[in-house]
């Protein structure tokens, strides 16, 4: 059966199409300015489309909507189809991708080096990430998940700073190594006797039952724990979880600002999404081993990620590296929320996973904003070394204010979005894993430490007498330009809105997560 709604295909491939146009227009030697604005406008259009998807998602009906389906690969041992659709879990993440894609494009408007190539890769990156969130077919999901490394490799290698080629290769090898195991896991799931589809969720419109139902109560072709681990490794690398997080600080530090925004904002979320959709979605009733058995160990890993990430964050001297490490800590909360699945109470399970999903969304906007602000400050000061900075508030109050907002949201100040998601994670993981949750709570304390201390050292106090910016240069520092405010405000709005009225996102997530948890 073929059904083709088209809006999701358009949302995914609009950035790709725009990048193709830029590629084909390359021989015309167009002005850089033209290319920039074309790329930015195409991300704006994508954002509008993603907004439409999010708002038009019928919350009363639930389930999978906006289906695009075409049979695609039909070999003997693997049959896959091009199947796009959104449910309550993916709709907010589609919105997040559209939002951050737009912010990243705006933040890239000062790129001077090989402009057309830069936007080709940035747009392809957005398309790949968007594809991950809307693919319902496991192999298609994997295709987008893998494809994303190529634009990242190019963007970090060529437009990065520091040791870009090293960092890019490290990022690629970590991601591919994780993905390789997932690849085998996909075959193992599909080739299990009872499974005849690669569709992850039930799609009644097409008469597809979905792996989650088919796999329930049957023996898999290999031990379920092994296949579970194959998927988990791929996502644990990407999330990242201690001890597989090593690529993240390098990639973040050396990537250009907009790429850091995408990386922290949406790429890490692909992993959290994958864990919910696959590790939790598929392995709840498998024979011999279920996700509930793994929750205990994962809660320990989550607690280590949170606290270890936070401790390492405190001692960072590079602003960007500091925020990068704080991501390790904050993504640990995502994993902690997911471990509530080990509980026996359905409300707690749903709440925990919901908290994790919301934490993904809020972390995307908060850290995206933080990277934007660091990028803006760095563009002006040309250093990110914290001991060399100080007293920036006097020269750039606007950047300071939004840096404050990002920082406070990050440390979980009530009325900002970080608070809501973290409290949801704690409330629901504590009854199940009291020790892990209690230890993780120190992550919040440490977050207050590193955020406030960094802001204090960079924006307040006096300019350091030596090693910093020369006095004449310091007096010439300027504040954010009006155009910079567009991405900044676009990311700030959700921080306040979710902080005050979390229902706007939580309710949608809830629909999807109740369907995933059976």
């Amino acid at each position, binding site marked *: 059966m073929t059904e083709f709604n088209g809006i999701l295909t358009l949302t995914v491939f609009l950035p790709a199409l725009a990048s193709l146009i830029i590629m084909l227009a390359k021989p015309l030697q167009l002005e850089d300015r033209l290319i920039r604005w074309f790329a930015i406008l195409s991300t704006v259009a994508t954002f509008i489309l993603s907004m439409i998807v999010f708002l038009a998602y019928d919350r009363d009906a639930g389930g999978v909507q906006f289906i695009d389906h075409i049979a*695609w*690969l*039909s*070999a*003997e*041992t*693997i049959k896959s189809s091009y199947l796009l659709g959104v449910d309550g879990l993916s709709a907010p993440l589609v919105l997040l991708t559209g939002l951050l894609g737009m912010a990243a494009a705006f933040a890239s408007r000062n790129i001077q080096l090989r402009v057309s190539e830069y936007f080709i890769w940035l747009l392809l990156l957005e398309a790949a990430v968007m594809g991950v969130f809307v693919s319902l077919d496991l*192999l298609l999901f*994997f*295709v*987008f998940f*893998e*494809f994303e*490394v*190529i634009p990242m*490799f*190019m963007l970090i*290698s*060529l437009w990065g700073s520091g040791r870009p*080629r090293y960092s*890019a*290769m490290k990022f*690629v*090898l970590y991601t*591919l*190594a994780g993905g*390789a*195991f997932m*690849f*085998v896991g996909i*075959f*193992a799931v*599909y*080739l299990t*006797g009872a499974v005849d589809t690669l569709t992850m969720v039930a799609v009644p419109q097409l008469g597809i039952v979905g792996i989650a139902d088919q796999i329930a109560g049957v023996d898999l*072709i*290999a031990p379920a724990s*092994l296949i579970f681990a194959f998927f988990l490794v791929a996502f644990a690398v990407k999330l990242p979880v201690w001890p597989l997080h090593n690529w993240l600080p390098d990639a973040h530090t050396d990537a250009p600002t907009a790429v850091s925004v995408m990386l922290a904002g949406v790429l890490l979320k692909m992993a959290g999404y994958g864990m919910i959709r696959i590790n939790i979605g598929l392995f709840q009733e498998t024979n011999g081993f279920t996700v509930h058995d793994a929750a205990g160990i994962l809660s320990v890993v989550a607690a280590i990620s949170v606290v270890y990430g936070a401790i390492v964050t405190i001692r960072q001297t590079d602003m960007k590296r500091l925020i990068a490490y704080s991501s390790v800590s904050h993504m640990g909360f995502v994993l902690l929320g997911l471990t509530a699945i080990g509980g026996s109470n359905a409300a707690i399970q749903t709440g925990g996973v919901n908290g994790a999903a919301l934490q993904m969304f809020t972390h995307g906007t908060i850290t995206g904003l933080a990277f934007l602000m660091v990028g803006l400050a760095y563009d002006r000061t040309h250093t990110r070394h914290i001991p060399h900075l100080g007293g920036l508030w006097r020269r750039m109050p606007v950047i300071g204010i939004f840096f404050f907002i990002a920082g406070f949201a990050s440390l979980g100040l009530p009325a900002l979005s970080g608070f809501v998601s973290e409290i949801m994670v704690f409330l629901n993981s504590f009854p199940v894993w009291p020790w892990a949750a209690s230890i993780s709570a120190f992550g919040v304390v440490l977050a207050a430490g590193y955020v406030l201390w960094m802001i204090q050292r960079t924006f307040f106090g006096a300019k350091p007498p030596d090693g910093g910016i020369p006095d004449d240069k310091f007096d010439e520092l300027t504040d954010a330009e009006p155009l910079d405010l567009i991405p900044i405000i676009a990311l700030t709005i959700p921080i306040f809105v979710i902080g005050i009225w979390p229902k706007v996102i939580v309710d949608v997530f809830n629909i999807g997560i109740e369907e995933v948890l059976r």
Partner: protein
Amino acid sequence: MTAQDYWALSPVIAMAGLALILLSADALLAERMFGGKRYGSKRALSWIAVIGLIAPALLALNLWFGWVGEATSEAVLYGTFTADRFALFFQFIIIGATAAVILGSVPYLQQFRDSLGEFFTLLLTAAAGMMLLVGASELITIYVALETTALPAIALAALRRDGFSIEAAAKFLILSALSTALLLFGLVFLYGYTGATRIDEIVARMATLPFEAGVPFGSLAVMLAVLLIVAGFGFKMAIAPWHMWVPDVYQGAPTPVAAFLSVASKASAFAVLMRILYAMAEFDPVANDWQILFALIATASMTVGNLLALSQTNMKRLLAYSTIAQAGYIMVGFAAVEAASATGTATAGPQSIMYYLAGYAFTNLAVFLGFAAIIHRTNDDSIAGLSGLIKRSPVLAVLISIGLLSLLGMPPTVGFMSKAVIFSTAVDQGLIWLAVVAVVNTVIAAYYYLRIVGLILFGQAQENQKIQPTTSEMTAVAAGVVGAIIFGVVPWLLLQPINDSITIV
């Protein structure tokens, strides 16, 4: 001989005839044109060859669609040759590879102006031998066809006549002789055990012979036969542990010849091995033990190829090791046999192998010929020489990068899709460990492929002189890349004909 016999052989005859035509044309053109402008007229030979290839291609298409002759599984010429769709599928690959190699080497061949006729005659003779080989269904025909492909290939490797080239040819000759000897031994054991040389008769007689319990392959004679045949073809397929000659020969031989060897020679050896082994696959002892054998060979080949490729500094040697690794991935498909299939899909193995081989042919030709165009102009086949290629030849740099990403197995190229298909057959057989080994290998491979892509796209160019490939070179490379993308995005375009051609199971 009946009319059907002639039709069945017609593509091979046309290819051999074309070789003779070029030999004569070379003599005629040389006779007329003395002096400085000799290459100018000899250039026509390339076009005669490319246009002439339409004849075997049309004749093969004729058989495929059954216009006049017909593709049947019935062997012709007293059972020695089978022009089934399986053979035709590989003949298409061989014809296509030959055409691409000729197109991609028009400027390169200038340096062989004295032996241009030999180049084409040898190339087309080797191609004719390969086309015979993929349809051969009798042991002696297989042997003769194999020699017909090997000897011209050795002469081709020596064509540059410098130290490297002579060394390569000498190594190739000795190891080729050795491998043929091993193969002959294997064929003899098969004959001694069953008393027949035709594959269908061998299979029929094996069905009546008892299998011994506890002996691998059910009988020591069959075991020796299988091992020696695999070893013999192992040289041609360039799989570990029979891979030693590959880097030396690829480095020393003219680059287009290396491209031809890495695609056509490999594909034909894989085809004939599939034909022999799948005929015997219905005997459970053979199929079960064969699975372990090929799983081990695949592991060795992938790992050796990829690990040794990591430290290479010469582009041609790196590509040689990469083809060894690629052959290892294909061997994963061989490990998937009917007898142990979990889902009962007997054709899964051949389907995955043929899909992989076809995709590999497109990708590898693009990469090899792309590099051939560069190396010919820069006279530098080191990896460092590729630095900043994007500034010197943007289109070629992009095409080669896509080709390398397809070899690495990045979506949405055919390299990814064919890996998905071929690794899934291993999991289907319960060989999860093999699939894990294979995917870990692709990660190792990612390092050296991406290092080159990085160098091409971001490196500092040592020279700023532009590299401007001719239209014919670009056509060959672009055709490979376009194939690699189209067959990756729309796999059924390739899987459909493959499903029609799995006539050997």
